[in-house]
């Protein structure tokens, strides 16, 4: 398959940019309460940082950072966080996804408990979206043959 191009500039810029992109992604996720943004947007940005990694270096480099197994686990993890919060609400005697019941385990009043719950699920969504974006990108970009790198 095509050998990844050893371009110093791209790699350096990538190496510098990726941390900022990821921090920004985290910011977008957590700051979804006060500004446009939230789990999806932030998750996509995080995913994009990995995709930049794949483009600048090559796919194996990216998979050294996050293997398929970890990636798949992250896919599920985010959703398990999300639906888990719902189940916790269920256990705490509310209806499903009724975050205000979380005040029983969090040191806040029911109103802020909702805000907390929202933050929790935004994080879950963020994780899943990031992992899914990476996974889909890898599969599509490498036609599923990961070993042979990008095209």
């Amino acid at each position: 398959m095509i050998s990844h191009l050893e371009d110093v500039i791209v790699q350096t810029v990538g190496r510098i940019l990726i941390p900022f992109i990821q921090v920004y992604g985290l910011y977008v996720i957590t700051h979804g309460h006060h500004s446009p943004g939230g789990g999806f947007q932030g998750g996509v940005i995080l995913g994009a940082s990995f995709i930049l990694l794949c483009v600048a270096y090559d796919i194996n480099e990216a998979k050294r950072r996050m293997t398929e197994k970890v990636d798949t686990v992250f896919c599920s993890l985010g959703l398990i966080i999300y639906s888990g919060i719902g189940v916790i609400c269920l256990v705490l005697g509310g209806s499903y996804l009724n975050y205000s019941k979380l005040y029983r385990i969090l040191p806040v009043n029911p109103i802020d408990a909702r805000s907390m719950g929202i933050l929790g699920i935004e994080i879950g969504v963020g994780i899943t979206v990031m992992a899914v974006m990476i996974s889909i990108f890898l599969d599509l970009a490498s036609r599923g043959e990961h070993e042979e790198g990008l095209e």
Partner: protein
Amino acid sequence: MEFILTKYHYWIYIVLMMIGFYAMIGKRNLVKKIVGMNIFQTAIILYFISTGAKRGATIPIVEHGQGGAMHAIHAVHYVNPLPHVLMLTAIVVMVSTFGVALALIIMLYRRYKTLEEDEILELRK
């Protein structure tokens, strides 16, 4: 005249939708079909967002954050957030469909080495 000025945006979306729709059922190239699919869905998204618009209203975020609860909030000052929410969902659905579609196309290309519907039908015989 008045009628046209207040309704024409709907027609733009519908024309867009129809372009996409035609690409989906009329074109013989699979990638074009998928592109048409995206145009269709995007047009629907535009339509939904437009239903939430209000003249002279701002984005649905309370100014100066937490303090916002202090003074009263009037519905007319903010655009309708519901369509935005729905469309966030719709966008994600669209992206997912797009991903699966591309995966299918890769499978088809692996198998038939072409993406023209007619040629594939030929090979299937």
